């Protein structure tokens, strides 16, 4: 009896181990090993013709200030972009979840999700032409506004970011608002709260998990963003993603690029931990898993 029980337990463990093995192998081969390789590269030296040659030095890390501007630009862009997304997304999500007529919801939600089926690169190229000289400026020229330039401006970059990442912000907020117990709103009103204080004290408060999820999701993606600044900003605005692309594809300084990549990962982890703390505190006892 005991023996067969042990046997079945062993079999169960074996099955579990076998089922987990492919995923574990995948993670080791495609996540852990590349990360180790990058860590090793980051203490190496650039070979005379570019690439990597073995060494043990922290010179690459000491050289990080050479990309301080790129780090700084990214640290400003990522939260600002996420905030802009939030300001646009919240009213949309609020309308969808609490105000939109039931029969319209499907269509409205589909309109938010459908653009996601097309690659961000394609959609950003579309904006290049909409904002370019043959797009909106050509239309404005008909009404006498000549030589207006929209493309390659900070405004174009911001527009591209908000446009590209908006669904990632709307959907989590929508879900947290949709699950809101409407009776709480009635109770708040019955107890004499104004609509504003009901919104601030109940609706906003209870939707914070969605807000923090959306915010950190968008912010982390923005930390690695390089496409939108290149295409809509004319390559004049330089983020850490652009620095990485150039270091690997132009100057072929793999060790320095690796040191920056490692630093970026560490920064992202810190950002996540801080966001997690804030969201936990804001939403009281509710704990939100961000990592």
């Amino acid at each position, binding site marked *: 009896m005991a023996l067969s029980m042990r046997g079945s337990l062993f079999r169960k463990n074996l099955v579990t181990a076998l089922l987990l093995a492919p995923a574990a192998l995948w993670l080791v081969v495609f996540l852990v090993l590349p990360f180790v390789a990058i860590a090793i590269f980051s203490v190496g030296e650039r070979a005379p013709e570019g690439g990597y040659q073995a060494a043990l030095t922290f010179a690459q890390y000491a050289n990080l200030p050479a990309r301080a501007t790129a780090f700084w*630009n990214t640290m400003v862009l990522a939260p600002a972009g996420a905030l802009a997304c939030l300001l646009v997304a919240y009213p949309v999500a609020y309308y969808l979840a609490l105000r939109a007529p039931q029969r319209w919801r499907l269509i409205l939600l589909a309109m938010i*999700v459908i653009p996601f089926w097309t690659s961000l690169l394609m959609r950003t190229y579309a904006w290049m032409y909409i904002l370019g000289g043959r797009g909106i400026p050509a239309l404005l020229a008909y009404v006498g506004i000549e030589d207006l330039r929209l493309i390659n401006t900070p405004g174009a970059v911001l527009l591209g970011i908000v446009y590209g990442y908006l669904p990632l912000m709307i959907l989590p907020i929508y*879900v947290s608002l949709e699950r809101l117990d409407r009776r709480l709103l009635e109770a708040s009103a019955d107890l004499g709260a104004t609509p504003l204080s009901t919104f601030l004290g109940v609706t906003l408060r209870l939707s914070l998990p969605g807000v923090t999820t959306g915010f950190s999701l968008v912010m982390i993606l923005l930390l690695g963003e390089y496409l939108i600044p290149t295409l809509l900003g004319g390559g004049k605005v330089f983020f850490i993603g652009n620095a990485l692309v150039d270091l690997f594809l132009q*100057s072929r300084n793999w060790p320095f690029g690796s040191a920056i990549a490692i630093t970026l990962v560490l920064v992202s982890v810190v950002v996540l931990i801080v966001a997690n703390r804030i969201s936990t505190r804001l939403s009281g006892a509710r704990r939100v898993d961000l990592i």
Partner: protein
Amino acid sequence: MSKSYRDGLPITPDKFVDQLMRLKRGSIGRRDFLGLTGLGVATAVMARELGIMPTPAFAAENLGDRMSIATWPNYHDPQTFENFKAETGVAVEVNVFGSNEEMLAKLQAGGSGWSLFVPTNYTISTYKKLGIIEPLDMAKLANYDGTKEDSRFTAEGTIDGTIYAVPKNWGTTGFAVNTKKLAKPMSSWKEFWDTAMAEGDGRTMVHDYQLTTIGNALKYYGYSFNSLKQDELARAEELLLKVKPHLFAVSSDYQPGMRAGDAWMTMCWTNDGAQLHRDIPEIAYVLGNEGGEIWTDFYAIPKDAPNKPAGYALLNYLINPAVAVKEHLANGAPSTDARVNALLPKEVLDNPILYPAADLLKPLEFGAAATLTDPGRAELMARFKSA
């Protein structure tokens, strides 16, 4: 059954967020796993590459059914590759690049998958030194005739008597100006940079390319296009940082901006200058009278080319004068091959964009190999772009 607005939705917001949270916790379905990680695709590709799944076998003379080439934007007649496919059954995948550095980076990393590529003159010695390209087997290139090539342009393809690369086109690096927007006549790099900070404010483009952007800034002071001297580079950097806030873009893809009228002036290669001028006559092409770059693009075959027979076949096809002349007419860059020039109409040979006057050509410099790998120039470019 009641109808909900959710019926038929590809993914509902709830499911989307649930899935997201599930992924974060590390739980995932098999389908999602294959889809999200791309493992399904990767397995299929690997199986094919490793020969687990059958592909048409290629023996020594079998060309296979596909190959890929790395080259520059707007540089080939697309019809050429269609014709090649019709004749040989080999489909050509075309990868375009913005800089030689990027091509080198891909080849250095390995597994580029290219069977033919188009490096510029000054990079060939580095490719040879790194052992990335192989000496060409001239027996397979019956269409090549070295005696018909203009030796001014072909020297850098041959190292120690061995041919590593054969020339494609030559050209110059000047600038294109929309003369309707910027009417004053210009003839020098000094005027280019000064105009960029005045009438051309917000409308000027420079290449996202250290060789030409730094090189042409050096020409402002009359220094060598290839300078590696610290004090000269420091002055070029000073100029670049001063110009930066006035620029429309730092990009090597300047045709869309010029065509749309957003950009009025840009650093420009011969072939793009010819194409822009052909379609929009008010766009002029100017060579700086202080000098600047003259270049030759070559064909070379990477050592790790996955389909060398097809690489050689395409190369031999492309240097056939009857094919090369069509390429020339499509891309607008001059040919190094006298047999091709003999087939060109007179108005092409008389086009001053393609064949500048001798006194303008004289001060031009070929790019120097050292600039390709010099960390100083790379860091200068990074400081310029991040400023």
